[in-house]
């Protein structure tokens, strides 16, 4: 029924390119800030372990950043190719926000990334460190603008929509600092940091488990677990605040997250269940009485709105939102549990020896990506059927492009991104397999990977390669 509907196809295509893209910035934001900390530790302590860690992870950063850039350029044009109605009508408001993202962030990142990667022999240590910090700031500035734009679409204010259907800005401060923006920004940046922490921790745990690269591995796992202990519980708190903000501004989204159909006092928390959009019930629900009211209103008998308060055509696809939310929260709880375990092991002084825990950390390495993706599924599917919440529908935004061209390009995107993902993962795993190279170690064996030109070994010449 949907297959030949251009709106549906355009949404699938955009969801695909966007979901694929967000994996990379989520990692880039975290890893850039982390590399700045590592380089700072290195300059401060002179400890070559930090240099080895930096030089290994900057390679992974480069691969990741490259894929992030090329898939991000796609998005900046898809607003026009797929959503020209949206571009025409909201351009007055969103255009400057995206323009500022390019001017304040993209150029900064792109230019100083060159120095960060290739500048070792060209600039001094301090300038190189400055370049790392600038790139890290660039990623955060970029997140600031794009999340401001996204949040404005979720909680629009500071504009008027005139008779011509176009949005006109009235107050820029209200537009940029719209009600959901501070919460979404902090929640997303924290998510990016946690995503990175669990990847880095997973790799460190892998080396410890394989009994290789012990000194750098301790740095990786140790720093990652500091994040898990301190930041993972904080994220739960931030997520709760973001959720309460959503309840205030987008209650239908929260009702879908809860799978709640009837408005009620003392609403139960449905742990699991299967929301049925047509029958308007959540089947097989496993409930904890009154907990949903307690979480959302901080009162066990508080009233929570159900989906039936909205006409069926204004409700989001409930099952998607309901399940994505559970995956996100589940990942968050696993991260918190990891932090607790790490703290106990650390106090018992066995953090770096507990092999079962290293396996556990390896298993959780991709948890951040799952959480970020499912979190975005909650927020983006949960605001449907609107593109600008309660003001403009997704169906009004679509371009005058037929189903056939969208299908062809969707197939092309799936093909190209599959190759990209496969190759990116392969080369990142290759860097991980090779591992950090300590100055006193002889350049490592190739671990079954061929490098006949010796280019990689050469670029890793121990120590002293910067001026």
């Amino acid at each position, binding site marked *: 029924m949907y297959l030949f509907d251009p709106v549906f196809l355009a949404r699938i295509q955009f969801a695909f390119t966007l979901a694929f893209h967000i994996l990379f910035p989520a990692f880039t934001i975290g890893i850039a800030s982390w590399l700045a900390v590592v380089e700072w530790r290195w300059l401060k302590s002179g400890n070559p372990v930090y240099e080895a860690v930096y030089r290994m992870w900057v390679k992974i950063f480069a691969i990741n950043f490259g894929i992030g850039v090329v898939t991000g350029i796609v998005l900046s044009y898809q607003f*026009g190719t797929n959503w*020209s109605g949206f571009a025409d009508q909201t351009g007055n408001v969103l255009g*400057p926000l995206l323009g500022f993202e390019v001017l304040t962030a993209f*150029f900064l990142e792109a230019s100083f990334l060159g120095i960060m990667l290739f500048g070792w022999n060209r600039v001094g240590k301090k300038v190189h460190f400055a370049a790392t910090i600038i790139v890290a700031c660039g990623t955060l500035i970029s997140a600031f603008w794009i999340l401001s734009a996204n949040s404005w679409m979720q909680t629009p204010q500071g504009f008027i929509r005139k008779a011509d259907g176009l949005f006109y800005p009235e107050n820029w401060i209200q537009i940029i600092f719209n009600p959901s923006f501070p919460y979404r920004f902090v929640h997303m940046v924290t998510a990016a940091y946690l995503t990175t922490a669990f990847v880095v921790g997973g790799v460190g745990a892998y080396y410890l488990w394989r009994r290789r690269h012990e000194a750098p591995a301790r740095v990786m796992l140790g720093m990652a677990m500091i994040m898990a202990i301190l930041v993972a519980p904080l994220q739960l708190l931030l997520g709760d605040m973001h959720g309460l903000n959503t309840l205030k501004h987008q209650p239908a989204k929260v009702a879908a997250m809860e799978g709640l159909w009837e408005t009620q006092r003392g609403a139960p928390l449905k742990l699991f269940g299967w929301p049925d959009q047509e029958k308007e019930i959540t089947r097989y629900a496993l409930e904890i009485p009154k907990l949903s009211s307690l979480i959302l209103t901080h009162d066990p008998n508080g009233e929570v709105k159900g989906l039936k308060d909205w006409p069926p055509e204004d409700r989001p696809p409930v099952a998607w939102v309901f399940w994505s939310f559970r995956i996100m929260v589940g990942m968050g709880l696993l991260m918190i549990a990891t932090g607790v375990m790490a703290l106990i092991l650390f106090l018992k002084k066995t953090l770096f020896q507990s092999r079962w825990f290293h396996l556990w950390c390896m298993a959780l390495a991709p948890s951040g990506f799952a959480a970020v993706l499912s979190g975005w599924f909650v927020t983006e599917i949960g605001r449907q059927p609107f593109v600008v919440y309660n003001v403009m529908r997704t169906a009004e935004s679509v371009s005058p492009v037929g189903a056939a061209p969208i299908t062809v390009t969707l197939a092309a995107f799936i093909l190209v991104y599959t190759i990209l993902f496969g190759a990116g993962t392969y080369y990142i795993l290759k860097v991980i397999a090779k591992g950090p190279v300590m100055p006193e170690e002889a350049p490592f064996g190739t671990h079954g990977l061929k490098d006949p030109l010796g280019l990689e070994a050469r670029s890793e010449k121990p120590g002293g390669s910067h001026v």
Partner: protein
Amino acid sequence: MFNLENSLNLPLIWYALIGTAILLYILLDGFDLGVGILFPFAPSDRCRDRMMNSIAPFWDGNETWLVLGGGGLFAAFPLAYAVLMPAFYFPIIFMLLGLIFRGVAFEFRFKSSGLSRRLWDYAFHFGSLVAAWMQGAVLGTFVQGVRVAGRRFAGGAFDWLSPFSVMTGVALVFGYALLGATWVILKTDGDTQKWARQCARYVSIHVALFMVLVSLSTPFLNDSIKALWFTTPTLFYLAPLPLISVGMFVLLWRDLGQQKESRPFFLSIGLFFANYLGLGISLWPWIVPYRFAFWEAAAAPPSQSLLLVGTLFLLPLILAYTGYCFYTFRGKASHEWGY
């Protein structure tokens, strides 16, 4: 609300700024796309390594001008962005896919060897080639004009495909190849440079041919362009432009036979600049040719005002640190990967 509408001609300033951003994109990404176009023809892997290294620190920054062109158009002329992007649906998306392949090839190529390395060599080449051709086709379609109804594109998915757009696509491929070849002359020496000189000579003949072809056929697409270039007195005002182009071309041809290292690159830039200026004069004041003039597609004045203030501070800063990066990586490129 902050608004500069009464003191400045905002749409005109933004028309000039977007034009400048697109020109900078064409010049900057032009040379690195050009390197990609010439890539498989280089005599050895060592040459290819040097070519790749000569652009590796810059390609990302260069491509950001494309994002500024698109993002700036969205911000300053949302109507033009909304009409043109669906009109260029296929060429834009295939350009983006081409840019993906060439962009990731930088990282992947140096991390692989043997057959997979060869594959990334070709990903880099064909990605660059496809992106360049699609951009040329977009330019050709833009010059021909697109069908519009109300505020929306009203044509078909293959409206963009015409003999003229095919020709402008090929013309831009050769143009970028010339920028790429002269860039390689500037950034390398020895065998690589020698080969690049031969390349530049071969390519420049085609560039000259296509410059003549495009320049002669464009006026026949539209009567007002024809009137502009073929009637007095505008003919006399505009005559210096083609004459300067011919002069630059002659100089370029002579330089390629001598040992000049940097001048060919700047002469190629000059040729692009002259052609771009000629095109700009022909298409004035259209932003969606023959349908919307730039002031008819302008964003609301407060939107243009806000971004303009930001741009006035940020653009000089961007140019300054972009210059710093080019300065940091001055001199000849090595064949060894840098990190």
